[in-house]
C-alpha cells in the first residue's frame, strides 16, 4: 500500500505525452502535404492506416500511463 505512490508512471506519461503532442503538432503543421498525399488512394492507403496505428500506440500508451498516474486502475481481483 505504502509504495503505491512510487510505482506511478509519471515519467512514462510525460515522455509518451511529449512524443504524442510532437507528432500531432508535426502532422497539423504539414496539413496540406499530409492531406494531399494521404488521400491519393491505392497504395497510399498505407499512409493513413499506418499513421492511425502509430498514433494509437504512442497516444494509447500516454493515455494508459496517464490514467494509472491519476490513480484510475482496474479492480484487483
Amino acid at each position: 500500500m505504502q509504495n503505491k505512490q512510487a510505482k506511478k508512471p509519471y515519467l512514462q506519461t510525460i515522455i509518451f505525452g511529449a512524443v504524442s503532442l510532437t507528432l500531432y503538432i508535426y502532422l497539423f503543421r504539414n496539413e496540406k502535404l499530409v492531406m494531399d498525399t494521404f488521400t491519393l488512394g491505392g497504395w497510399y492507403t498505407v499512409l493513413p492506416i499506418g499513421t492511425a496505428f502509430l498514433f494509437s500506440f504512442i497516444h494509447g500508451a500516454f493515455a494508459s500511463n496517464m490514467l494509472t498516474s491519476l490513480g484510475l486502475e482496474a479492480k484487483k481481483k
Partner: protein
Amino acid sequence: MKKLLIVLITALFLLPLASSAFAAGGAGPDKDLLKGVFLQVDAASHTAVFKRDAVDQTITYNLGSKMKAQDLPLNKKVMVSLDKEAGEGVIKDVDRMFLDMNFKNILSLIIVGFVGGLLSGFIGSGGAFVLTPAMMTLGVPGAVAVASNMCHKFPKAMVGTYKRWKYGQVDLKLAAVMSVTAIIGVQIGIQVQKAILHAWGNAGSNLYVSTVFVIILVLVGGYVFFDAKKLAKGADVSGNQTSKLALAMQRINLPPMMHFKVAKVKISAWITIPVGLATGMLAATIAVGGFIGVPGMIYVIGASAMVASATELGIAFVMGAWGSIQWGLSGLIDIRLALLLLSASLIGVQLGALGTTYVKDYIIKMVMASVMLIVAVSRGFLVPGYLGDVGLRAPIDPATAALFSQISFWSLVTALFTSSGIIIVAMISGMTKSRREERLVAKEVINNG
C-alpha cells in the same frame, strides 16, 4: 476447428476479389464519385474545368441544371458525382472534401471522441452511430465522415481490446470466428442493399434502413432492458445468468463443435456462424454491427455481458481495419478527423474498459439497452419523411422535416451523454466501494496482526 477457421479466412480474402472491393454501402464508396479540383469555372457556358486526382489531363464538365457556377469551390479538393440520367459529363453534385479546422470543430471532435470512446470501452461498440452524423453536421461529406470514422474506430478498438484482454474478458477465438463471418455478412448485406436500391431507389433504401434500425433496436434493446432489470432485482448476485435460448443452443450437438474458453461455452459452429453473419449484415445496413453482435453473443451463444462486450471490441478492430482499407483505397479518409477523434477516444476507451471491472454484468446490459432504445427513437423520427418520399403518405412540410431531423440528431447526442453518465456514476460508486473494502481489509490486518 483450425481447419474451419482457415477456410473462413481464405473465403474472406477471396470475397473482395469476387465481389467489388469498392462496393457501395458499408464497405466502400460509390464508383461514380470523382475526386479532384476545379481549376476554372465558366458561368456563361455553364461548364467547369476539372483536374482529376492522379490523372494528368483535365476534363470539362457541364454543370447540372440546379447548380450555380459561383458555388463551385476552385482549387479545393472536391468530390464530384455525375448525373448519369442527364447525359454524358453532367455534374449532379459537388462536395468540399475536407473541412477547414477551426477551434469549434476541433473541440467538438475531441468531446464526441471521448464520450464515444468511453461507451466503446464499456459496451464494446458505440460512438459510431453518433460520430458520423456529428461530423456531417460540421460539414464533412457523408463518405468522408464514414471513412474517417472507420479509420478512428479500429485503433480505438485495438487499444480497448488489449486492455480488456488484459483483464481476462476477451475471447479471442470467438472474436476471430465472429469477425470473419461478420465480414462475409457485410458482403451479403451490401448485396441486399443494392437489390433494394435497384428496386425502390434511394427513398426506398432509406426507408428500409430506418425500418430495420427501429425494429431491431426496439426488439433487441427492449429485451436487453427487461433482462437487465430482472437481473438487477433478482437473487443472482453476480448478475450473470445464461439465457434459456443459449442453454438450448448449447445442447445442439451438431459438429463441428467449437469450444470458447474465456466465454466458457461449447457450442456448434452452426449456431456461431449465423450470429456472425447477422452482425455483419446489420453492420452493412446501419453501420453498428455491435447492436446485434453483443446481444447475439449473450443470448444466443451464452457468453456473459462482460465477455460479449469485450469480444465485440476485437470484432470492431478486425472489421474497422478491413473497412478502413476499403475506404483508404479510394482516398476518402480525412486523417485529421480520425486523429482528433482518437486524441480523446483513446483515453475514453481505456477508462470505459477499466470501468467494467468495477460494475456488475447487468449494468453493461442496462447501458447497452438505453443506448439502443434512444437510438431507435432517433431513427424513428426520420421514418415519416422517408414514408413521404416513397409516396406511402403525404409528404411532410419542410419545417416539420427540419424539426424531425434536429430531434433525431439531438436524441443521438442524448443517447451518448446519458449512457456515459450511467457509466461514470457506476464506475465511481464501484471504485468507492472497492476502496472502502480495501481499507477495511487493511484495518483488519492491522488489528489482527
